């Protein structure tokens, strides 16, 4: 089986860059959605390495916390970040919240750290 790790990592990094572009263009709520997408991409890629394929976003978030953060040795901060991004994305997409700029920036920064931590973890699995 070919393990194509590069593409989800690239896509996650692209989502982070796109989120920053949206924020700079005056769309903080939409930027939060893309920041979550970046985190989700990396979590799905990490779980796929462990042959775990949840069928829903919530399933990805909880499985990431259990398999990659808990058993896999990734810092707890990143599981917490992914849960927060999931919640924030739901709240802005359901029009329950409008994201202020500073919150969107924090979300993107958190997503970027998560993506880079995930990329390092994936690289370690490859060795």
């Amino acid at each position, binding site marked *: 089986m070919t393990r194509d790790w590069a593409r989800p990592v690239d896509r996650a990094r692209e989502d982070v860059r796109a989120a920053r572009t949206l924020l700079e263009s005056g769309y903080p709520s939409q930027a939060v959605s893309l920041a979550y997408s970046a985190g989700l991409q990396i979590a799905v890629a990490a779980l796929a390495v462990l042959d775990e394929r949840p069928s*829903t976003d919530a399933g990805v978030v*909880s499985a990431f916390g259990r398999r990659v953060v808990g058993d896999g040795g990734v810092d707890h901060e990143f599981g917490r970040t992914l849960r927060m991004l999931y919640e924030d994305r*739901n709240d802005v997409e359901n029009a329950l*919240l409008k994201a202020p700029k500073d919150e969107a920036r924090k979300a993107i920064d958190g997503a970027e750290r998560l993506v880079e931590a995930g990329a390092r973890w994936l690289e370690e699995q490859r060795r």
Partner: protein
Amino acid sequence: MLDPEQVDLADLALALEDHSRDHKWWFDPDTGAVEPRFEARFGDDHSAAGLVSIEPVPTGVGYADMEDFVARVRDPRAHHLLERAITGRGAFRRFKDALLDYPELRRAWFAFHDVRSERRAIEWLLERGLVDPDAADAALESRPEPAPGEVPGLLDAHGVTHRVAGELRRLYGQRLQSVMLVGAWARGDAHPESPIELLVILERISDRWQEKRRMDRIVWRYSVRHDTVVTALPVTEAELEGRATPVLARATAEGILIK
């Protein structure tokens, strides 16, 4: 008057679930005995003898127990199989057969069902004035609703909600008006991966994002501890009543309020 502990509650629970046409169950209020009698052989003079007829509860009650149990099963494959098993005619038989492949869940089911059916038996005695009310309360208290959160493979979303609500009460004090369980777990159609979605009703909110961040530590801790995703959205009662968004409108219709 009898104490429920003098009654064989397991037999009474069995009688309440027995829909057989061959016999009928009777309860002796003097001794607490629960016995089946075949009408053809003994006639129908038991009422005259002071015995109380035990009519079975509707089959829907037992079905609801299975539904509640299946909703808490986390393993996706087991959840799917059990969900299919309880659909359509022959649900009880298929459900029991399906559990044979999952010994841990089977044990959890019996524990869950035993407590529920014994609680129903105590309530049956209480409603008919056959037992001392204080003793019945104590008997119910000693058989709390099953907490399957402690059983591997099961998630007790309502129990988790209660515990999160307790922690939020400590965080917010009087500002916390209530917590509402919404979404799939409130509707009763949860998938094993469904998040536990909460609305946190606060007296006043000046900065909603700040409140979200205040709750984050608690919500994350319960997510990890129960291998699920818990989400919490702070709202005011006025916002909830105003049904400002479709999500809030649905919440008012289907949410379960936890004081």
